[in-house]
């Protein structure tokens, strides 16, 4: 599969179809995979593909340092690919200008990451080129999707708040969660605005809670569950739980999973007169 990937990228670069390939590489066999940007056909052997290729590379489609390389091909796993659809819906990418190389994936990490356990997109579905073959997702993958958050919600509200107070007390506001997120492409994040300061920039519990509420809610109906924020957090905060809870609400209330159906209208910035609630009096 790796050979096929390298061949594919070599051909794309040789033909001039793209000027650079965003993929995974590594310096020595023991190192984790890192994002690499291959511009020359002879460099394609730097590309790797295995279950330590964690990063969601679609983030780089909003990094000007990468866009400056010219026309791009990008390697995506099934989960990452969902981000492309959201970015397309939000006018951030011109899909016709990007060659998408889909990587068949049976999950990453040892042990498998939580997201991989309930993954139902082992094979990228809208890639221009798909490399490899993946196993068929478990039939009950979908059922497990929200298991963690459902378990968490069984705790008492006091317990939940105590949990977040403990977790968020470690947040140093390094914004790794924001910077790795493919959906965080704002030119100036609201937290960096100072007239007015709507979210305290201090890494206090107050500022951290306001920031994480904001980050999570700005992803409502947009987050594709790549869990890069959780992976990136140096404070080890399980941000996945926040995202999952909103993903659950989006699916339960509006039957919507971001990045899944190209024909589905985004739920944010839209409404239905039939939206159902029982809490407004």
């Amino acid at each position, binding site marked *: 599969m790796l050979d096929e990937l390298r061949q594919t990228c070599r051909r794309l670069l040789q033909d001039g179809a793209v000027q650079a390939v965003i993929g995974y590489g590594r310096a020595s066999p023991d190192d984790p995979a890192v994002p690499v940007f291959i511009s020359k056909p002879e460099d394609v052997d730097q590309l790797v593909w295995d279950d330590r290729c964690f990063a969601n590379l679609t983030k780089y489609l909003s990094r000007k340092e990468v866009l400056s390389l010219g026309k791009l091909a990008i390697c995506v796993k099934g989960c990452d690919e969902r981000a492309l659809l959201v970015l397309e819906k939000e006018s951030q990418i011109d899909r016709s200008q990007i060659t998408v190389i889909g990587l068949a994936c049976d999950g990453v990490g040892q042990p498998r990451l939580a997201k991989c356990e309930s993954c139902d997109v082992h094979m990228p579905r809208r890639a221009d080129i798909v490399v490899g073959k993946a196993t068929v997702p478990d039939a009950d993958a979908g059922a497990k999707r929200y298991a963690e*958050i459902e378990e*968490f*919600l069984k705790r*008492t*509200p*006091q*317990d*939940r*708040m*105590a*949990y*977040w*107070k403990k977790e968020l007390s470690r947040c140093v506001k390094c914004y790794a969660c924001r910077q790795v997120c493919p959906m965080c492409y704002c030119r100036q994040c*609201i937290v960096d605005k100072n007239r007015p300061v*709507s*979210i*305290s920039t201090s890494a*206090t*519990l*107050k500022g951290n*809670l*306001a920031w994480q*509420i*904001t980050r*999570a*809610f700005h992803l*409502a*109906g947009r987050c594709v569950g790549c869990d890069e924020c959780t992976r990136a957090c140096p404070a080890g905060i399980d941000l996945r*739980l*926040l995202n999952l*809870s*909103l993903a*659950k*609400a*989006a699916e339960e*209330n*509006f039957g919507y999973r971001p990045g899944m159906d190209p024909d589905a209208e985004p*739920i*944010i*910035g*839209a*409404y*239905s*007169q039939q*939206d159902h*609630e029982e*809490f*407004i*009096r």
Partner: protein
Amino acid sequence: MNEANVFQPKIIAYVCNWCTYLGADLAGTNRLEYPANVRIIRLPCTGRIDFNLIVKAFERGADAVLVSGCHPGDCHYTAGNYHARRRWILFRQLLETLGIDANRVHFSWISAAEGKKWQQVITEITEKTKALGPYTAYREICQEC
């Protein structure tokens, strides 16, 4: 009547300019008395009311927050309240996950004709919040490290 030592909750109400604000005006015109704990912030439409405002209200020491606007179908701007409703459906899930007390965040549709409803809603929220006591859980969060 001196109730200086009784807990007086702070309630912040974000209301739309065309329905709930006028409903509160009507409550005034009809001299419908209600507790003085509420502070109204007038915005053009519930569509303008962002979740950050709810968070900020708690940071500023609110014991309860009310968001109120036109009934579905009555929005002065045709659809602002529908957009708002959809956001709140999602936002309440986030509050639940975080363990933020749903009894502190209230939503209502109050039309310009519903002065009576405004009086009832404010009275009820005030009583309920008095029973809950100050929102110390959030105030602790806001204390300096």
